[in-house]
Every structure is written in C-alpha cells, then in structure tokens.
C-alpha cells in the first residue's frame, strides 16, 4: 500500500466516485475466488477460453503479417463466411486440430499442444533488455542470470500447498 498525495479537487472527486462502492474487506472475495476455481474445472468454459485464445492468436498473426480476414480466407482457400464464424467464436463451428494446424500454418505459426498436470504451474523467467553504456542489449545469459538463479532456487523448494483465497493485496 502506498500513501500518496493528491490535490483537494482530486480527493473530492474520488470521494464522490467511491462513496457507493463497498469496502474491499466487505466484498465476499472468497466466493469470487471459489467461482473462478469452479470455472477452471468446467470443460465447457475451458474449451471456450482456448477457442478465444486461438482466435486472438489469429488476429495477432494477421496484424503481424499485415493481412485482413478476406486475404486470409483467400490464402486458406476457404470462404470468408466460414472464417468469420471462426473469428466470431460461433458456437456452431467446432474446431478440429486439423483446422487449427491448417489455419495457423497459413499464418506461419507452429502449433504445440501441452497437457501439464493440473498441479503443475507455470514459472516465468522475465528477461528484460537492459541498457549497457547507453546501448540496448539483447537478453543474454548474463541479463537473465538473476531470474534463472531465482527459478532454480524455487524449483528445489517443495511444491506450494494450494490454499483457499485469502485477502492478500499485491505489493
């Protein structure tokens, strides 16, 4: 938590804005957390999320290549209507793995499937470019060393217990 200073005008505006908002400690956040955990075990929701992820990747790849949906449909040899149904996440269209691979290959993307155990979690090593003598340097073993070392330390710790949600404000 940070205490910060704002003008009286901003403080007054914030008072007005937040006057009807309940205190965070009075919100039933455990119910929100539990509802999230339930959704993550719901095959229909997870499939819907993965479809959304796939469609988002298509949009990102189209943007990267500077092409629009018409051009992609033409390149793929399918109708614009069929592609639209995919892009609109139309429930009547079920993607097969063949469709996903075929379409992503049109966009120069590889497709990989991962099936981690549900108790397996992702650890991210952030390798951020740092300026060295006013020159930007690509991520290298040296710039990543600290993250890698932290990861190795963490990897040797016992797996964390999965605990129910607790009100725990981020730093």
């Amino acid at each position, binding site marked *: 938590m940070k205490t910060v200073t704002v003008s009286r005008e901003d403080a007054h505006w914030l008072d007005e804005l937040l006057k009807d908002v309940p205190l965070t400690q009075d919100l039933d956040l455990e119910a*929100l957390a539990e509802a999230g955990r339930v959704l993550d075990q719901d095959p229909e929701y997870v499939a819907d999320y993965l479809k959304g992820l796939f469609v*988002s990747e298509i949009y*990102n790849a189209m943007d990267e290549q500077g092409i629009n949906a018409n051009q992609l449909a033409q390149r793929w040899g399918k109708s614009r209507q069929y592609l639209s149904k995919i892009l609109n996440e139309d429930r009547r269209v079920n993607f097969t793995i063949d469709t996903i691979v075929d379409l992503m290959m049109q966009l120069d993307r590889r497709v990989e499937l991962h099936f981690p155990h549900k108790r397996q979690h992702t650890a991210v090593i952030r390798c951020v470019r740092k300026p060295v003598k006013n020159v930007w340097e690509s991520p290298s073993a040296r710039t990543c060393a600290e993250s890698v070392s932290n990861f190795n330390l963490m990897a040797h710790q016992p797996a964390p217990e999965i605990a129910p949600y607790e009100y725990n404000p981020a730093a």
Partner: protein
Amino acid sequence: MAKERKNVNPKVDIKIKLLNIPGLDNDCQSHWKIRALEINGRSLALAALKRWQARHQAEWKKIRKVMQIHGTQEEIKDGKKVKKSSNPDHGEVYEMRADKGHARLMFFYDSAEDSIIVCANSHWKGKGSQDADFATCKRLKDIYFNNKGEKP
C-alpha cells in the same frame, strides 16, 4: 483584526493499492499481471467483478476469459475482446469487453517497473456514458502515475 487563515496545505493523502483478482491464477498471467486498483480501501473494478459474478454470470465469464487471454498475450488485436478508447483526449486507456454482452472493464497498462494491467473501473453497456467511464479511467490513471513520478 485577525486575518482569515488560508489553508496552506491544499493537498490530501489517499491510500492506493493494487490487488490480486481472486480466482485468477498465475498461470494465465505469464505476460501481464492483472491487478485491481484500490483507493482508500475501495475498488471499483473488484466491486464490479464481484457484482457480475453474483448477478450476471455469463458476463463475468466473458470478462474473465478476456482477462485470462490478455494475461498471456502482450497485445490483443481482436477488437471484440479489447478496445482502446476512441476519444483522443483519453490517451491510452482500454476496455475489456464481454463479446455480445454488456460488461466492460476499463484498464490501463503499467509497464514501467513491471508488466501490470491495472483494472480501474467498469462500464455497463446501455447504462450511463461509456465516454464518461473512459474519462474516469483516464483520471484514475493520471492519479496513479502522477504519484509514481511518471508521465501518464
């Protein structure tokens, strides 16, 4: 005659926090950490998420799906999921959208120290002005960044 004393300190202290979103695990936050902005113990974004989860399940699921997708992707080019305010006065403020639905979660990026998506407030399509809610997000963003000593 005693002079009327002027207020010499026209500033006020407030408390700002970034809160985890309950039920959103770290696996879907590999690119962006998704946080809710809390000011003086109250969070417009968390209150909206809680309200939607309790009363508008379908809308909450759609917003949660977009949060999960954006947490793993640097940019979202699909305008049905994430859209920037079209008002140039608002600058870089965005909304996560419940596709074909009403719920909108306004946010901005904080990539200076860490990669954070700061969810600031919400909008319900058909109720109130979307432009005004983007303006609210913009003002919250200004308060957030001005106090970090950075340009908004």
